């Protein structure tokens, strides 16, 4: 029996090793063949052209810009909302908003994509007088909304874990509630809030379907109102039909994405560990 449980336990490691090895084994050859500099820093992706070009800088930059944009919008709003929920909202209000936030967290990403493409894309086209609304901007907004729930709930948990004594001490010194929250509670919860941010980054950089529906999917160098491809959507949009070097290059993109995710994972782990100490 023990051996069977051991086997089950090993499976999780096996999966991760399997996925990592698979990506490395199938992703490295194309990088090798294309040349690492041409691959990572090439600005043109034309995988099916007569003279194919495999530069993924547009995807990398788009993913970075998109993620940063989403964080820039999502984190302040999410953090402020979590403060509101943890410290200011009446219990009744909180008991309504919190399940709604959970609901937002559970909604499948295609649903966000649907609303994005039906509401946001046309609205952006109108508002900014663009030929087409599908753009990096829309992707950023959708991502910001999608990471909001996890940022809210993780930082709310962190804020709630701040010992009440800190707050009492601050209030007893004549600080106002707001001063107490921002000068004592938030710094005391900072590692938890940082974890929320990193989690948000992980979510945003890994999302594919929702942004596939709003970003336009042309392999342009990123700019706010142009149609762009992310690392994830670059894999998704050509995966079905790619063959040969093109397909290997897709693995290489997935490998790059995987490296990003691993970095984020390690960061998250360290932050959470630090919090425990």
């Amino acid at each position, binding site marked *: 029996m023990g051996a069977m449980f051991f086997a089950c336990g090993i499976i999780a490691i096996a999966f991760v090793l399997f996925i990592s090895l698979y990506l490395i084994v199938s992703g490295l050859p194309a990088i090798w063949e294309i040349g690492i500099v041409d691959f990572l820093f090439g600005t043109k992706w034309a995988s099916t052209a007569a003279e194919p070009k495999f530069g993924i800088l547009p995807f990398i930059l788009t993913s970075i810009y998109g993620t940063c944009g989403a964080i820039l919008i999502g984190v302040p709003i999410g953090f402020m909302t979590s403060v509101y929920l943890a410290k200011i909202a009446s219990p009744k209000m909180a008991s309504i908003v919190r399940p709604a936030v959970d609901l937002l967290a559970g909604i499948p990403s295609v649903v966000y994509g649907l609303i994005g493409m039906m509401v946001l894309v046309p609205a952006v086209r109108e508002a900014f007088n663009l030929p087409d609304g599908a753009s990096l901007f829309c992707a950023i907004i959708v991502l910001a909304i999608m990471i909001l729930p996890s940022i809210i709930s993780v930082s709310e948990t962190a804020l709630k874990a701040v010992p009440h004594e800190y707050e009492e001490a601050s209030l007893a010194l*004549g600080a106002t509630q707001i001063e107490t929250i921002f000068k004592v509670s938030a710094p005391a919860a900072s590692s938890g809030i940082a974890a929320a941010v990193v989690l948000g980054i992980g979510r945003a950089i890994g999302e594919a379907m929702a942004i596939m529906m709003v970003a336009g999917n042309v392999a342009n160098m990123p700019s706010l109102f142009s149609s762009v491809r992310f690392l994830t959507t670059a894999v998704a949009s050509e995966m079905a039909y790619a063959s040969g070097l093109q397909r290997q290059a897709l693995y290489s993109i997935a490998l790059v994405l995987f490296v990003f995710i691993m970095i984020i994972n390690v960061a998250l782990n360290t932050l959470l560990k630090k919090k425990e100490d």
Partner: protein
Amino acid sequence: MPTIIEAKNLDLWYGQKQALKKINLEIPERQITALIGPSGCGKSTFLRTIDRMNDLVPGVRVEGQMLYAGEDVYSPSVDVTWLRRKIGMVFQKANPFPMSIYDNIAYGPRIHGTRKKSELDEIVEKSLRGAALWDEVKDRLKKSAMGLSGGQQQRLCIARALAVQPDVLLMDESTSALDPGSTMRIEELMRELKKDYTVVIVTHNMQQAARISDRTAFFLLGEMVEVGPTDKIFSTPEDKRTEDYISGRFG
């Protein structure tokens, strides 16, 4: 001695439950007043009513008056941040902020608008000296306050309270979690402090009350049974219940 704090017919309810019943109590300036009584009798509640820390508890209702320097602390013209600045509080469990020792002390002054480094340095030193902690920490002001021992942390909290220049210091069982050595140091400190401050302490330790307080008030089941000079309360209490409690017959 002039009275600085005075409760007049003070009633307090937590929701349905009445925790203080018609309390009348005068606390004179620059003395140590001890509040004693069995667990749950309302000592902490009374203390936290003085600087309105009870406002934080949902469903609290107060009737009657609590006067500080002649003014009702619950009157609309009183700003609670000002009130709490004038009336410092030290809690049972030492609760330094997770920051450096310096920042802990400077927290209050900064809140109240002192920004200049030189001024802050001065306040920090003065407060730490006032709390008899300066010599022990002067070399590690930038280190985290969490690294101090329990007794040092509690003195840090006293220093932090002193840094905003209060008139009154409320201490709720502030030595009960400490070892005898640390307790002794803090008791010495209190004796020192009463030269400049009015001190109100809550304690379960009868010896402590007898040792350091000038006046003692005995609470029971939300009522203030008896108050008077500490000697008198401990030697010839007027009320039978006070005598029973002091002689250890209940509580």
